């Protein structure tokens, strides 16, 4: 627990640093205004824009903890958005569209999970199939164009607000809390980590490994569908080509920045959400600073490189020595 606390502290200080940078480039950043019962301001903006990646990261973290990876989440977002738009355009009510989109995400996750468990494919290959084909399927549903809709209920997934907070933020936070409770208040999280550490040992210890594996991919698909709904509601249309494009990489980065090892066995929902917020904070900072947005990619590369170097076995002894010296100084 203290390890988690130290990691949380380092991620929080990183987030604080990013927010500080935001304040420096835009002095009014921390201001909050209430307009028509909805809060506006820099922090809300980061939360709101970061919601899709937060959702994807919440789904991706357990997958990575099982030593897997889900490359298909961006494509699943596009499919779910397309299904929702097509459903309301066919004259159904918006709750039906939401259920249809979530069902689609569930089915996509089930497909991935079955490939990984029953066909015993490597996760990267299994989800690559849906990543390649998924966008094609989404294009098939939207017939290659941006499928717009006028349904206010569905658009509300992005524009509505509750208690002053935009709905996407609430959805992402609720998803993170529900997932966190699911994995930490029960033994599910331990099962997931056991499968990631050693599938054979987990099986011998009586962990239902296939069920756990299918479960994490289904959950990831479901989170992707939620993110897809938000993305579609945001533009009041389903864009099969661009919805969720490259967001799988953002989600993986958020999870890695959150300290989850790509070699499996350990994960944290809360830290992954922090990772997503750090990424979005960096994006916003560059956007507001007036620097060319192209710098985003370079800066992201630098941050990951830093995380990799810090996490690398080659650097661990040096870091351990440094922290030991610092704590000695602190107590002396």
């Amino acid at each position, binding site marked *: 627990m203290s390890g988690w606390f130290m990691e949380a502290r380092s991620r929080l200080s990183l987030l604080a640093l990013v927010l500080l940078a935001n304040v420096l480039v835009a002095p009014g950043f921390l201001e909050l205004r209430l307009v028509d019962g909805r809060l506006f301001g820099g922090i809300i903006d980061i939360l709101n824009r970061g919601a899709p990646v937060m959702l994807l990261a919440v789904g991706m973290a357990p997958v990575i903890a099982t030593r897997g*990876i889900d490359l298909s989440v961006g494509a699943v977002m596009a499919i779910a958005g397309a299904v929702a738009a097509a459903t309301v355009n066919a004259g159904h009510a918006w709750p039906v569209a939401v259920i249809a989109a979530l069902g689609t995400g569930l089915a996509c996750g089930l497909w991935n999970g079955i490939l990984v468990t029953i*066909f*015993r*494919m*490597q996760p*990267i*290959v*299994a989800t*690559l*199939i*849906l*990543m*390649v*084909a*998924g*966008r*094609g*399927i989404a*294009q*098939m549903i939207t017939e*290659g164009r941006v499928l717009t809709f006028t349904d206010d209920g569905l658009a509300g997934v992005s524009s509505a607000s509750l208690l002053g907070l935009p709905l996407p933020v609430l959805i992402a936070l609720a998803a993170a809390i529900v997932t966190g409770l699911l994995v930490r208040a029960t033994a599910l999280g331990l099962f997931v980590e056991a499968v990631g550490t050693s599938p054979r040992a987990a099986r011998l210890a009586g962990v239902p490994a296939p069920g756990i594996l299918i479960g994490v991919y289904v959950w990831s698909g479901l989170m992707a569908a939620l993110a897809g709904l938000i993305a579609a509601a945001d533009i009041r249309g389903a864009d*099969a080509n661009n919805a969720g494009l490259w967001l799988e*990489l953002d989600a*993986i*980065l958020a999870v*890695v920045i959150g300290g989850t090892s*790509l*070699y499996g066995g350990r994960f944290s929902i809360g830290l992954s959400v922090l990772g997503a917020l750090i990424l979005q904070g960096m994006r916003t900072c560059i956007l507001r600073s007036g620097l*060319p947005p*192209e*710098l*985003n*990619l*370079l*800066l*992201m*590369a630098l941050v*990951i*490189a830093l995380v*990799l*170097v810090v*996490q*690398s*076995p*080659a650097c661990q002894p040096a870091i351990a020595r440094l922290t030991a010296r610092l704590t000695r100084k602190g107590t002396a």
Partner: protein
Amino acid sequence: MNARTLPFLATLGVFILLYAACAIQYPSMLSSRVIGNLLTDNAFLGVLAVGMTFVILSGGIDLSVGAVMGFTTVALAVMIEGAGLHPLASFTIVLVGGAAFGCGVGVAIHWLKAPPFIVTLTAMFLARGAALLLSTDSIPVRHEFYQTLSGLSLSLPGSGRLGLIAMVMLLAFVLGGVLLHFTRAGLRVYALGGNARFAGLMGIDTARTTILVYGVSSTMAALAGIIFSLYTRSGYALTGVGVELDAIAAVVIGGTLLSGGVGGMAGSLIGVLIQGLILTWITFDGSLSSWWTKIAIGMLLFIFIGLQRLILQFSAPTGRTG
């Protein structure tokens, strides 16, 4: 025939069947013009697949190739049109730069003991970001040397032509195949992909092999950038977005296992040609939309990976189960 050649033979069989089906529907598919275009249009993908074959056989993955290719096209345009450098000098610079970049990626993977997936992802952001910083616009290249190179081609029997870039691609496959299948360095790549720890215990220099593999991959990506630059006569930072997935798909469809250690160069060429053929067929058909390409490639990936799993399951008990 053993478990290792069976996936390749299956790939070859699928390609021949696919081509036969296309040719029955559209007899002009058999013309040397279509064959020449198939090779020319997919030359950059083929060159990328050569490098990706090395990486995947070593048990790794390289997500940065599309970005390196994009960066190369912009760098060439800036050097030739902006700085007035001769194209040949520019080609040398980008090839050396590509090799150095790839070696750096290999060093990072080995030294940081980090997953190739995340290191090459970082490299992808780095290369794409650098390309966008150079220029966000598409820069045309009007140098007359480009005209000369584009004009070079070999006449095929019939009305077809084999362009220079198609010849470069075929040469890359031949040289890559020789390096992989007939040299000690190639053997080390297989050993590393088979089992990295045992390879180390056997006295194989895993650091050198890792650096070689990613060095080759990035050099090929730079070469693909040159080819794309000649093909479109321009440089654009967003060139080749997502093309790394096509290259991975080509290698996998070609019978190489993504877990490393099993596969070969010839299959990757067929993998590229199968993708090109699907695209050509959809163009011929005219009524089908381009999204069918993605769905078809996804289905092919599924079929081939399933096939490989079956073959491995039923082959000798010593066979790897991945």
